[in-house]
């Protein structure tokens, strides 16, 4: 691994950036450097690593210490001065000295201009977990990365130095940044901590940090100069108008690049709403279709050219509203339902209209007063789409009978009756079935309902659905085979257009996650290629929301119900005091509740230094294309937030309870909370605002790297952070829900927390290799759901999935070193007998000592891997009944398929005849924009030898604009990189091309 003097120029081959490190050393001459070096013992080249380590000590002393111990002997000298004399590992260093020097100069000069260079970004986004890869990358882009980092560093410094007042100026922008930052910091922190403990530290990260530090030292002034510019740029504010459930308007200024969640939290704060997981903001797109505002993405990118006009509404209708903790939440749900009923979206009978109307009256007006309430007193209310005098009379009659009922009781009664309505919580979408018949797709808590007119003609419960996808204007669900059936079937529906298809797909993903999973699935990191939707629901699931609700411990919030008072209400908003208290409490809580799973330490507990570092780290790692935004972020940093908190502390009253509350939330849902809370910490909107930065997505991207070691924690956080706003515009098909049987036994954890821990464990064991895998594995495990007893068996059975098992062909013969493919990895010896199984990284259960054998199968095609040219369409029950399975051609899409198989010579024969004993089987699915990767890992024990076989199915989807060959090459390359110790034994390319395409 000798990094050459020209390291800067060297590309990917060299894991570490020697030059930079050295620079640092020279400048700072810090002893601890050596320690860091130790972290990467055998694998990485000692010299470079050591150099890199040098800088870290300053910021991350803690980390350095543990690491240093082991290799203390080696490290000591090099760390000190730039002079090669002291260095033990002089070889490399001495060589490098000249280049470093050059570099420094160049960097300093370049910095101003380079600042915005996005080089680093790609790396981070990819979140490659293999150390080698990362190192390589970092090495590749030394200059750009350095420059970026510098910027960040600058920001940090400023933030620290600046008084709060200054920050206020930046307000909203910064606020956002802060949020993001905080999020990022929270995420990263855990990772770091863990790392510290771990002997193997990832040099790349350290290096980055070091670099940052260096730059700070060198160019503090520059940074300062840069900031103002950026600030001014970012200052653009936009006024958002939000229609609340009571019809009032809430206006709020947000930074132009603010994310959805910022606005959402503002609204929730205004409403004083804590149980907010059931709600969301929506907007009308150009086609007047209602779209949900994605909290993790920039508002501007979502609404496009539409107005900044939103509606606050219920997104997930709780099946049992009585389980909500707060009356306020129920009240808001009532308001939503009243709207739904009055608009006809929620149909109900005359009697029910009257009954619900009477409860609404009781809640709003209290007991009927015969004197005051004249006959027409209710004409102001709308109880039904077509309100008749008869109905009003009935309502009044029933209203009378509710005498004595409190508003909260009336709301509860209202909900008890409303929830029984068959269309309660059903989100309807127009569609056509495979035969062109108009139908409606209803997405609800339990699954997907198919209606024809008012009749339910089919129903697909979530457990029955294996996969949800859309392609162009078609929406597909893959159905789990029934008892008697052998094959999965796919049902296709035709939506009016592509956007509609995507919308229903998204809603399905969200509902599935919210109602069926215990915790959200991690979005996949795209390693290469970008296309398709990575979308995942990132909020809390119902299980988590409920858990959090049970822990709410705040005084019952005061709120007014009267619709007539709407106007006044909107003006006064939620009492300021309340809000501030709230936020405050939250803040304080945040410090205390660093659950293992959540790792929210960012605030109170962590020493100031750490805080700063962390954000900085994030920033550094994640290089964003937008340079300006970064700077701000950096400046806004966590430290400021803290200060604010302190000042406010005095004001806060219910701190304890609130903190408790916050904690509960935090614990329950790792997701977006942290950011929100952080934001809230600032309390006053003005202060808070500046923290927000647009850059959030970048942070997320950075995470993976940091996480490698402790994949679990990082993974958890990822979802929230993961904005991936850039990616958004999905083109083609996407696969979402994989309820496939997952092998993992740990999977079904009832409590969110425990689940989180679970993840961490699993991820740890598997860690390092691929970000994608990490992200997914946990989610998968979590996916197993307890709700449906019928299927539990299937789901829990470890290697239940049929495909994988079959495919596991125990290949006894030694793997052939030669792979037919050009790209066969030379560097990695496919030698079967290598004692340590490389596969370990991916697999939790490893049998050591056995011979590990890996076959990588890459399947590239434009359609799902298990390609069925014919799909079974069961769009209504008739079809199902009459013809057990009537196979029809897939609507619209005609395809041409081609399959090419490349196999390594020796491996072909694989079948030894002896099946061996299947030890473990595991399937992991990950997705990137245009690729879906399914990794199936099986371990078989054969005659005392353990054999690991990894089979990857990579589905590359996309139009002609994608270079499939390149994508395939990339995929194969990736696979090799991920499993350097394994050999590629077989590559099957299955190409499916659409002959006749339909347009949207």
């Amino acid at each position, binding site marked *: 691994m000798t990094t050459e003097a020209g390291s800067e120029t060297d590309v990917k081959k060299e894991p570490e950036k020697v030059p930079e490190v050295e620079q640092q050393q020279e400048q700072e001459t810090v002893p601890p450097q050596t320690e860091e070096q130790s972290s990467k013992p055998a694998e990485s080249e000692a010299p470079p690593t050591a150099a890199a380590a040098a800088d870290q000590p300053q910021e991350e002393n803690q980390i350095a210490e543990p690491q240093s111990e082991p290799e203390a002997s080696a490290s000591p000298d090099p760390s000190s001065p730039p002079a090669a004399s002291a260095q033990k590992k002089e070889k490399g260093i001495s060589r490098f000295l000249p280049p470093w020097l050059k570099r420094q100069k160049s960097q300093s000069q370049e910095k101003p201009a380079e600042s915005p260079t996005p080089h680093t970004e790609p790396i981070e986004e990819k979140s490659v977990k293999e150390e080698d890869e990362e190192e390589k990358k970092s090495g590749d882009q030394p200059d750009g990365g350095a420059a970026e980092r510098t910027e960040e560093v600058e920001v940090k410094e400023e933030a620290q130095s600046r008084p709060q007042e200054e920050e206020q100026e930046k307000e909203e922008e910064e606020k956002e940044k802060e949020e993001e930052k905080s999020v990022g910091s929270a995420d990263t922190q855990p990772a770091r901590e863990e790392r510290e403990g771990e002997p193997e530290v990832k040099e790349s990260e350290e290096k980055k940090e070091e670099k940052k530090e260096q730059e700070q030292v060198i160019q503090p002034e520059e940074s300062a100069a840069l900031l103002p510019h950026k600030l001014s740029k970012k200052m653009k504010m936009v006024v958002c108008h939000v229609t609340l459930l009571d019809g009032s308007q809430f206006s709020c200024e947000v930074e132009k690049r603010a994310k959805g969640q910022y606005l959402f939290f503002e609204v929730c704060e205004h409403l004083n709403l804590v149980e907010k997981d059931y709600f969301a903001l929506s907007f009308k797109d150009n086609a007047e279709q209602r779209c949900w505002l994605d909290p993790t993405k920039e508002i501007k990118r979502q609404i496009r050219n539409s107005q900044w006009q939103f509606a606050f509404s219920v997104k997930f209708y709780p099946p049992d509203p009585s389980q909500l903790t707060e009356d306020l939440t129920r009240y808001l749900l009532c308001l939503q339902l009243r709207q739904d009923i009055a608009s006809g979206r929620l149909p109900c009978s005359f009697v*029910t209209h009257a009954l619900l109307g009477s409860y609404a009256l009781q809640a709003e007006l209290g007991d009927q007063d015969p004197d005051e309430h004249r006959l027409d007193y209710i004409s102001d209310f709308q109880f039904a789409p077509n309100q008749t005098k008869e109905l009003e009379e009935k309502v009044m009659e029933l209203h009378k009978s509710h005498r004595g009922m409190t508003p909260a009781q009336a709301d509860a009664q209202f909900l008890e009756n409303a929830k029984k309505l*068959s269309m309660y919580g059903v989100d309807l979408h127009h569609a056509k079935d495979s035969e062109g018949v108009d139908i409606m797709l209803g997405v609800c808590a339990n699954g997907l309902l198919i209606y024809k*007119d008012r009749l*339910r003609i089919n*129903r697909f419960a979530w457990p029955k659905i294996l996969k949800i996808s859309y392609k162009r204007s078609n929406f597909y669900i893959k159905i789990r085979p029934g008892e008697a059936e052998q094959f999965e079937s796919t049902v296709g529906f035709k939506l009016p257009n592509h956007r509609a298809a995507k919308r229903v797909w998204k809603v399905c993903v969200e509902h599935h996650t919210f109602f069926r999973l215990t915790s959200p699935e991690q979005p996949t990191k795209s390693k290469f290629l970008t296309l398709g939707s990575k979308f995942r629901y990132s909020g809390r699931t119902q299980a988590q929301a409920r858990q959090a609700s049970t822990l709410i411990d705040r005084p019952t919030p005061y709120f007014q119900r009267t619709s007539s008072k709407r106007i006044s209400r909107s003006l006064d908003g939620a009492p300021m005091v309340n809000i501030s208290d709230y936020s405050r409490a939250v803040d304080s809580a945040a410090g205390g509740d660093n659950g293992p799973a959540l790792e929210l330490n960012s605030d109170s507990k962590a020493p100031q230094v750490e805080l700063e570092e962390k954000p900085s780290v994030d920033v550094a790692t994640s290089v964003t294309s937008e340079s300006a935004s970064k700077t701000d972020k950096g400046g806004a940093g966590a430290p400021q937030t803290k200060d604010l908190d302190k000042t406010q502390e005095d004001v806060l009253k219910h701190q304890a309870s609130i903190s408790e509350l916050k904690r509960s939330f935090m614990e329950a849902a790792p997701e977006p909370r942290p950011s929100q809370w952080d934001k809230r910490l600032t309390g006053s909107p003005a202060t808070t605002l500046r923290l927000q930065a647009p850059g959030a997505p970048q942070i997320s991207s950075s995470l993976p790297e940091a996480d490698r070691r402790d994949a679990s924690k990082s993974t958890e956080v990822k979802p929230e952070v993961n904005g991936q706003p850039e990616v958004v515009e999905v083109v083609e098909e996407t696969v979402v829900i994989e309820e496939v049987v997952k092998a993992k036994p740990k999977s079904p954890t009832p409590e969110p927390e425990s689940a989180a821990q679970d993840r961490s464990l699993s991820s740890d064991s598997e860690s390092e290799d691929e970000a994608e895998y990490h992200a997914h594995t946990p989610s998968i495990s979590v996916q197993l759901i307890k709700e449906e007893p019928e299927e539990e068996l299937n789901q829990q059975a470890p290697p239940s999935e049929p495909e994988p098992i079959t495919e596991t062909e125990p290949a006894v013969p030694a793997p052939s070193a030669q792979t037919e493919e050009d790209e066969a990895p030379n560097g990695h010896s496919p030698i079967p007998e290598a004692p340590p199984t490389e596969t370990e990284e991916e697999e939790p259960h490893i049998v050591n000592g056995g011979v590990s054998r890996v076959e990588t199968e890459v399947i590239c095609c434009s359609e799902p891997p298990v390609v069925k040219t014919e799909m079974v369409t069961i769009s209504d*029950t008739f079809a199902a*009944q009459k013809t057990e399975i009537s196979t029809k051609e897939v609507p619209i899409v005609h395809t041409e398929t081609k399959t090419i198989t490349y196999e390594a010579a020796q491996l072909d024969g694989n079948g030894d005849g002896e099946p061996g004993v299947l030890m473990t089987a595991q399937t992991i699915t990950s997705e990137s924009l245009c690729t879906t990767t399914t990794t199936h890992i099986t371990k078989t024990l054969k005659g005392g030898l353990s054999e690991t076989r990894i089979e990857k199915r990579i589905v590359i989807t996309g139009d002609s604009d994608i270079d499939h060959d390149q994508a395939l090459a990339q995929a194969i390359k990736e696979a090799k990189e991920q499993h350097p110790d394994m050999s590629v034994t077989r590559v099957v390319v299955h190409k499916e091309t659409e002959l006749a395409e339909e347009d949207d």
Partner: protein
Amino acid sequence: MSDFGKYTHAIMRAMPASLSTAALRSDNVSPVDPLGVQREFDHYVSVLRDRLGLQVVMLPADEELPDCVFVEDTAVVCGSTALITRPGAPSRRSETVAMKGALTELGLNIVEMNDELATMDGGDVLFTGKEFFVGLSKRTNQRGAEILANTFKDYAVSTIPVEEGLHLKSFCSMAGPNLIAIGSSDAAQKALKVIQQMSDCKYEKLTVPDDRAANCVYMNLPGKGDVLLHCTPEVFPESTKVFERLKSHMLIPVSNQEKMKVDGALTCLSVLLRI
């Protein structure tokens, strides 16, 4: 829906003499014994009125309408709303007139199925207390089901293909608030599968060997609890044994042998409602 099965009234219609000779029937195997039919009918009435204490509204027979005794097909009552159907057999359409009169008199909201494209026999409508299942059969079509769905908007209305037998309830019925009695034939089992798939509720099932024995009458009456009118051991010994496992129910075997010859099931003879 704790109100499920809590009936106070039963609307029935006296048996015309023409039943034994002119009633529609799906098979012609054995002749109907006029006396036997009448005896069974009288027993049924006495069980409802005398033993169970329901108010029985007895509509007069109409010799022009040989099938008029099977009042179930002419109306679907749920809550305070009654849907007057449009029977699938043209010869039975006039049966609804008397039923509509009776229900109006009882103060129910009346909805009529006037669409000439719609047909529905009440025997195809299974109300579980939580939702409706409508059998699409020779007598009931999609349009009829749509109208029912529009009439009872609070409830989910799912359609179930009926491939064999006259009506959906020819092989199933409710035997309890959450309990579906179902026959053993393939058709019945297939229908049950569909029911289960279409529903968010988890119904328990009571499988009886004979499809026709799966038609029983469930009520939840004050002072008597769960009441079940079911087949007699003489006709369906094995199925009766299954019913007898329902220990918490008040079990009342009611003979229906003769009416079965003209496709008459236990539920066919009455429209039960609560006022």
